């Protein structure tokens, strides 16, 4: 009970001190705003940069998710060890029997799709278009979780028989057929006629700015036999039962492929296995390094802003020496004076923080619409994240405490008589 009264009493005291602080700040409006400017810019910069970084990360994540659910990618060629390598898919070391072996021999694998890919000129009627043709199995759409807008996938039979059928991405469908329904129509891929079985729903731009709907998917057998030629695969998609299996399946794939490719221990893999998660990490690594850099710059601005607050608080303590003397003369304890100036500094910095947050949110809203008015500005998505807003507000308040402490302590240590005599 006593503690309760004590707490209530301190609460009232702090509230009245805040009121005094606000009045003091209002008295020097221009000065307060200029002082808070460092904090305003710092907080706004941090929030805008984090907004951009979060937006980019969000897009990358959505992108990675569009790879499919619980997916492991196996690429031809190795990029994991020392020496010169030709990069993903360059060496063409994976074969269709490899894919079959993975599907049959590894327990938790529920689907495997070989993947071949090459760009071709395609035509329908008097329209033509340059696009990517991807060869995959009948389970390819299930693995990648791609939905059909109309029509349906090709079947196992189509794959086995290397039938000349295909599924169009939204962009390709629009380019070749406009508003017409493409289902059942014939398109010529590099002059080979293919029948359109289905159209995928639109997925929009990827993080890198490529159009994810600018694609044609055909049975990999058809793609290999009639378009690409050869028997090696660029890559494979392997889907597991659950996310927990990804790690073990990844190892099993490596072991199986090393065995099949007769790679003796100590030699490098001639393939690369990546889980979705690893790909996501690689994609976000650069953007997080960049945003760390910007947050660092923002933090420097916050520190400079804090020094500005310290400077102005020192000026304020000097200016108000007599006021401090008067307050002490009527019974203010040193702690009361300390609290008053500390609260003033914190009020100043949190006020800067609040304006900075407003400005930062404004920037986050503005950045995505900028390309509409300034075509040179790249398209960037932003995401306003509440935890970071709370964090930056808390940080600006903390700056007030940190940089306000020295001037406040100086005020509290004044001698009442000296202070009263100060002109």
């Amino acid at each position, binding site marked *: 009970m006593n503690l309760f009264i004590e707490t209530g009493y301190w609460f009232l005291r702090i509230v009245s001190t805040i009121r005094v602080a606000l009045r003091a700040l209002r008295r020097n409006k221009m000065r307060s705003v200029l002082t808070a400017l460092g904090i305003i810019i710092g907080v706004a910069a941090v929030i805008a940069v984090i907004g951009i970084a979060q937006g980019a990360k969000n897009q990358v994540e959505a992108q990675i998710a569009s790879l499919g659910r619980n997916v492991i990618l196996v690429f031809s060629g190795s990029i994991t060890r020392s020496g010169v390598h030709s990069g993903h898919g360059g060496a063409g070391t994976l074969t269709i029997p490899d894919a079959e072996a993975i599907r049959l021999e590894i327990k938790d694998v529920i689907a495997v799709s070989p993947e071949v890919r090459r760009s071709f000129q395609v035509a329908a009627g008097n329209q033509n278009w340059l696009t990517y043709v991807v060869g995959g199995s009948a389970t390819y759409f299930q693995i990648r979780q791609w939905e059909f807008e109309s029509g349906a996938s090709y079947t196992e039979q189509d794959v086995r028989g290397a039938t000349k059928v295909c599924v169009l991405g939204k962009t390709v469908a629009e380019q070749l057929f406009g508003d017409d329904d493409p289902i059942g129509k014939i398109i010529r891929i590099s002059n080979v006629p293919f029948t359109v079985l289905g159209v995928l729903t639109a997925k929009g731009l990827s993080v890198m700015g490529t159009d994810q709907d600018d694609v044609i998917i055909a049975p990999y057998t058809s793609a290999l036999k009639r378009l690409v030629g050869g028997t090696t695969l660029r890559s494979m998609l392997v889907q597991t039962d659950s996310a927990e299996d990804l790690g073990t399946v990844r190892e099993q794939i490596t072991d199986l492929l090393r065995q099949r490719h007769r790679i003796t221990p100590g030699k490098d893999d001639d393939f690369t296995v990546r889980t979705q998660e690893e790909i996501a990490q690689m994609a976000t690594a650069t953007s997080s390094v960049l945003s760390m850099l910007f947050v660092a710059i923002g933090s420097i601005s916050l520190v400079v802003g804090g020094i500005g607050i310290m400077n102005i608080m020192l000026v304020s303590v000097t200016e108000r020496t007599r006021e401090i003397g008067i*307050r*002490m*003369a*009527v*019974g203010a304890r040193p702690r*009361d004076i300390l609290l008053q100036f500390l609260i003033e500094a914190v009020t100043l910095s949190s006020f800067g923080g609040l304006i900075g947050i407003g400005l930062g949110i404004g920037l986050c809203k503005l950045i995505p619409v900028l390309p509409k008015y300034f075509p040179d500005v790249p398209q960037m998505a932003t995401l306003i994240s509440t935890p970071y807003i709370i964090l930056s507000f808390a940080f600006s308040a903390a700056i007030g405490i940190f940089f306000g402490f020295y001037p406040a302590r100086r005020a509290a240590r004044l001698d009442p008589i000296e202070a009263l005599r100060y002109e």
Partner: protein
Amino acid sequence: MSAVIQLDQIQKTYHTGEVDVLAVRGVTLTVESGEFVAIMGASGSGKSTLMNILGCLDRATGGHYYLDGADVSEFDRNELADIRNQKIGFVFQNFNLLSRTSALENVELPMLYTHRRHSSVRVRERALRALETVGLAERAGHHPSQLSGGQQQRVAIARALVSEPSLLLADEPTGNLDSRTSVEVMGLLQRLNDQGITIVMVTHEHDIAAFTKRNVIMRDGQIVRDEPVAKRLQAEVELRRLRAADQAVKLTT
């Protein structure tokens, strides 16, 4: 009567550079409850230093100071602040009001630091009552710059009274005021003393000291004379006399 102030061989030495300055050299003084004392002396006599010690704004370097029986010479900064807040009302020569703050808020100031808890309504009530006592209730919303010197000093007195101290200390309270206003302020102090408040003030003007009950004269940091006021002036009488004189001036011009 009980002693409000008991000074026992109070000394104050200032260490300025190589020479030690003895501002107060062993002052022993007792002030009983209900007294009205004027400490007098030329500048440099140590009366202001003594006043600051009495007001717990400064600490003696030697001797003992008992305020209401408690030895405050041993108190730390916080305890001295509490004593200033609860037991002493201090009035300054230059008023020392917070500018850009209303008279009422100036009077409320000590209650901001009090350790007894008051609701804001009660704080306001008490501040208004204190302003009424000095006859300035209708000026509560005015800022010091909108008040005359005499009014400002009355606000300062109201501020000194608001926490109902047993002792009112005034350092040259009329020093910045004209003679007429000075008499008015002395009248106010006389009235407060009649109500039972102990008052100790510093002045170097004999006609102001004549309004008090006891004069203590200091020279070179020591008390050289301590006597009751033989011919005490009554502020009301003096004011009437001044008004009559004004009237006479008006009639002649």
